[in-house]
């Protein structure tokens, strides 16, 4: 029942929120709902160890061979957990932000959460598609209604990109569906079908799916919607987008791409990995030159996600584990980063790095938090990102599906040097040096901000020192994915 | 008389009607051209009706009569249309003091 609760709670409270009149109750109700999801997801973690209540299936659109089948496996658990953790954090961090038509805003946020949860637990392709859209459509409204001046333009770009991706994915899903012998959308049927499809067919399906996922991640060169959108939309929306929603793409690659069309994934692996690695360097280099904090973080996110993309297609057990733990860690870090950026903007009235300076003198606590989060972003040991990136690099390096593993590792490794450069540059220019006009009157963090940032810092350190707690969760599923996408046995057959 | 003669005549009338509509700007003449086109069709319908009747009367006494019924329908509709159309033209003349259809490009705006 737990996966159903994950979906139903935000869905129902989201719909209910449309009927709220005032801002305050809407805000509290949204927080309350997200906290309930969090509690359930934590309880779900304990249930996971005993393996109960994590599955649910009823017939739904039976004439189509589709059923409402949801299940939380290890990977779903990590992602549901991160969704559940991030929502309360986001709500508390932006507690003081004012919104027009706040009830609609919170309603759409919760609907997005329902969609995200659904994507992570869906075990049926049609259901997966349904939730994929459910997560994205409220997002369009959020981005187009609340944000900066050019938000409409940015949203349309986002819309066209993702919509094109979704439609192609739908074509792919329907095609696979028509090929299944029992005409079923269930994931088992797709996995079974994947083993029998010819390479040429797989190739088509691969690109249909991959385009949708690559746009969402995003992988170079499908990324240009992201910086614009992050720059234009409100901070809390950006947090959802970059913290949770981009993980949809990574997640979907692991669940719906590799195991289903494994031969095509193997054959195109080098190309995709090259794209991802180019993206890492490309985005890092661009991040060096960004003056707008939001754009800088956006590009750094592209670089980090690029590393995940490269790891996925190197198909190693350690790499998969690394990607899964890194999805969680990246979410925590980037939300932390956005909170810091949001606070800087609120306190100083600008996001331009060149207009900021000496903030550490006025806001020492914020400087410390920013430093820890920034160092987590550059994957310093004993912060969470180190674990993930270490395992991912290890995965890429030890990959047996590509001959260029060393080249990829080295190039991606240059990315982490560049990350150090732009993050430290940013910290230096924003927090150190002399005060400027914009920062002269800034104040330090307040209680809600301190609370959220402390939680984030604790998570960063906890996951950095004792990552085993999460690694245990994803053990099984990593093996399953690896064995499902095991190409050596398939190659001999074809 | 072979059916071809009727067809050619009808075709000629129809073409005259179309060309008239395309090149004339006077609304009344355009109207008359539409009538010519309708009558070209009527002529054709009657001709074919007669032809079918001659061929099929042995098997079925009413063969081909539906074509003539159509003609009556068309004449009735055309008469109705003429009344409405002329009324519109009159209103148009009252409003813009012209019956030049090139002034009627308001659809664009």
């Amino acid at each position, binding site marked *: 029942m737990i996966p159903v609760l994950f979906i139903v709670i935000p869905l129902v409270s989201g719909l209910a929120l449309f009927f709220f009149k005032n801002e305050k109750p809407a805000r509290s109700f949204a927080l309350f709902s997200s906290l309930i999801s969090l509690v359930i997801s934590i309880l779900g973690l304990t249930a996971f160890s005993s393996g109960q209540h994590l599955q649910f299936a009823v017939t739904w659109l039976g004439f189509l061979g589709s059923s409402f089948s949801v299940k939380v496996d290890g990977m779903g658990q990590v992602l549901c957990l991160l969704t559940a953790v991030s929502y309360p954090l986001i709500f508390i961090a932006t507690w003081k932000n004012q919104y027009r038509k706040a009830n609609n805003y919170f309603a759409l946020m919760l609907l997005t959460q329902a969609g995200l949860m659904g994507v992570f637990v869906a075990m049926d392709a049609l259901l997966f598609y349904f939730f994929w859209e459910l997560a994205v459509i409220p997002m369009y409204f959020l981005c187009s209604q609340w944000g900066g001046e050019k938000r409409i333009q940015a949203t349309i770009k986002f819309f066209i990109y993702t919509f094109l991706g979704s439609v192609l994915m739908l074509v792919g899903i329907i095609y696979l569906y028509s090929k299944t012998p029992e005409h079923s959308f269930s994931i088992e049927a797709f996995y079974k079908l994947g083993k029998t499809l010819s390479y040429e067919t797989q190739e088509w399906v691969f690109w249909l799916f991959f385009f949708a996922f690559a746009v969402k991640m995003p992988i170079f060169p499908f990324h240009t919607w992201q910086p614009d959108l992050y720059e234009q939309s409100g901070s809390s929306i950006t947090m959802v987008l970059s913290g949770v929603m981009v993980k949809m793409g990574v997640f979907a690659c692991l669940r719906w791409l590799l195991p289903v069309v494994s031969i095509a994934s193997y054959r195109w692996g080098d190309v995709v990995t090259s794209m991802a690695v180019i993206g890492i360097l490309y985005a890092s280099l661009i991040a060096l030159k960004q003056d707008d904090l939001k754009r800088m973080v956006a590009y750094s996110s592209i670089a980090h996600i690029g590393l995940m993309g490269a790891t996925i297609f190197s198909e190693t057990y*350690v790499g998969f*584990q690394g990607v899964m733990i890194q999805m969680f860690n990246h979410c925590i870090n980037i939300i932390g980063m956005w909170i810091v950026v949001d606070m800087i903007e609120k306190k100083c009235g600008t996001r331009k790095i060149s207009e900021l300076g*000496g903030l550490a003198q006025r806001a020492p606590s914020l400087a410390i938090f920013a430093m820890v989060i920034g160092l987590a972003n550059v994957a310093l040991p004993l912060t969470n990102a180190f*674990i993930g990136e270490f395992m991912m690099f290890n995965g890429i390096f030890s990959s047996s599906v590509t001959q260029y593993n060393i080249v990829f590792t080295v190039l991606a490794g240059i990315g982490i040097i560049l990350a150090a450069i732009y993050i*430290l540059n940013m910290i230096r220019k924003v*927090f*150190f040096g002399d005060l400027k006009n914009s920062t002269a009157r800034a104040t330090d963090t307040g209680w809600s901000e301190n609370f959220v940032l402390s939680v984030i810092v604790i998570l960063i350190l906890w996951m950095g020192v004792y990552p085993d707690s999460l*690694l245990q969760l994803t*053990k099984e599923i990593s093996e399953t994915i690896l064995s499902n996408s095991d190409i050596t046995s398939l190659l001999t057959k074809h | 008389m072979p059916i071809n003669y009727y067809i050619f005549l009808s075709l000629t009338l129809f073409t005259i009607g179309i060309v008239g*509509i395309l090149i004339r700007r006077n609304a009344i003449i355009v109207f008359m051209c539409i009538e010519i086109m309708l009558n070209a069709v009527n002529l054709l319908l009657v001709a074919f009706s007669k032809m079918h009747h001659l061929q099929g009367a042995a098997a079925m006494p009413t063969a081909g009569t539906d074509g003539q019924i159509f003609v009556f329908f068309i004449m009735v509709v055309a008469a109705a249309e003429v009344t409405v159309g002329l009324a519109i033209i009159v209103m148009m003349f009252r409003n813009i003091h012209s019956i030049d259809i090139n002034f009627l490009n308001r659809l664009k705006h």
Partner: protein
Amino acid sequence: MQNALQLAWLVPFFPLLGFLITGLFRRQLSKTMIAIVGNAVVFASLLVSVWIFVQVKDGNSYVAEYFNFISAGSLKIPFALQIDALSSLFLLIVTGVSFIIHFYSVFYMKEESREHYGRFFSYMNLFVFSMLLLVMGANFVIMFIGWEGVGLCSYLLIGYWFKNKEYNKAADKAFIMNRIGDLGFLIAMFWILSKTGSFDFAVVFSKASALSTTDVTIITLLLFIGATGKSAQIPLYTWLPDAMAGPTPVSALIHAATMVTAGVYMIARSNVLYSLAPLSQYIIAIVGLATAILAATVALKQNDIKKVLAYSTVSQLGYMFLGLGVGAYSAGVFHVMTHAFFKALLFLAAGSVIHAMSGEQDIRKMGGLRGKLKTTYFTFLVGCIAISGIPPFSGFFSKDAILLSTYEHNKILYVIAIFGTLLTAFYMFRLLFLTFNGNFRGTDEQHHHLHESKAGITLPLIVLAILSFVGGFADIPEIFGKGGNRLTEFLAPVIPLSHGASVSHSTEMMLMFIPAVLVLLVIVYAWYRFKNYRPSEEKGLGKILENKWYVDEFYDKIFVKPLYQLGSFLNKTFERSVVDGLVNGVGKLVNYGSRQIRLLQSGQIGSYILLMVLSMLFVFIIQFFLRK
């Protein structure tokens, strides 16, 4: 007494505790409390380290696994600490020198406000923690944690005065240069894992002999890249001189005594691997020697007291690497130890001078300080003698051990290395003479202000001076009597004794004393040269040396600027016009097309009808031709 070593975790734990206390409660605690906590934790570590050292001396060693740090399938990385001869020696050096420097900082930093005082000590404690982790790690990953941790602390401490932009830039530079080296380390680790299946020192070294020479060479070279970053060797050494932006105790602790020796430690630790890769050893020796000479030449013309010391550090590190490169691992470690003593001494004495001069660091504006700063002068002199390698001071023995091995290995390298030691003596005594001899060249106000530092500052100097004097006897060569080479024997469990072609005793004696005599001559020449020093503009080679061979400018032109230009190009041109242009282009095309097609909807009924008729005709014609 195997169980006694279970206390090992306390060694890094104390400084971590200190970091948390002084860091989190820096606004609540008084400065005295902060100083007490900050020192007590390091002292506690020192005591435990001594205890451990005594145990190890009895032949114990210990590996403890605390919890699974990372475990994924066959990859198991426990959080494990290791105590053996090498690590226990380093524990002693690190905690010992750190404690002296912490003690010194209490007085040196006393002008700082409470909050920053706390910040300073928390960083220092964090540094000690990271360094201990580096030294005690039982596998490459734990070592890497410490490895990056000290880089972080160095970054934090260099940028300690965060209002100064230049200092922050120096901090960034240190971190990034270290990062470049770290990438080499990281890839070396992956390589090791893929070949041996483990990160554990014990497992890796036991499987080392089964590796192919290519693998070992690549691994060792990659590790060496890591070492060049941390230990400031060519080509990644330029951060260290800039790192002098930090407070002087930091320079002493991090950039002289401990952190920079991490590379030496790491290579000494992996000596099994290096012994299997002669090519790597050769490269290390060359790079080490080149660094030693390069840095020494630059030090000749520097005028900032700390910069001279910084370049001398780089140069001495070069000697350590030379020692490692010729296979004299224990000699390298020995030099780490003696160097820690006398370089910490020199830096702290320099700090005392800077204090006395009210923050002035330019030696051209000093001179004649001997009269007012007696203790500082004598301790500084001890340091200079020690680093120049005059018997029986510590530097003589350690440097001699390295030079002797070099001689056995390669005569040309030996001659160049001797030349380097002469340079060392020259620039160190230039520094000494310019600072303490001759006439005072600063302002009257500074002269008036001149004073000897308080006991809190001079006491550490005296302790270090004694250590600099006696430190060398720890590994006194066998030829001076029985019971020599004790350090080498102590380290034997980790670093196997070499049984190379030994030189005869008479040659050894000669090799010791000829350089010593030459060094003395150089010192006399330096005295003659700088006895009546007048600051003058440098020309020709002097100017190049003063500007550090323009290496920074070169790096700036070759790497930094192009990197930013590339970023700028990608950002402004490529992203906007190519990638985004492609996307927007599709949108624009659709837009343009629809605008053109829109013209058909003119609103003229005639044109609609014409279009209709033409289309009908078109359909008929198509139909007509298709029929045929």
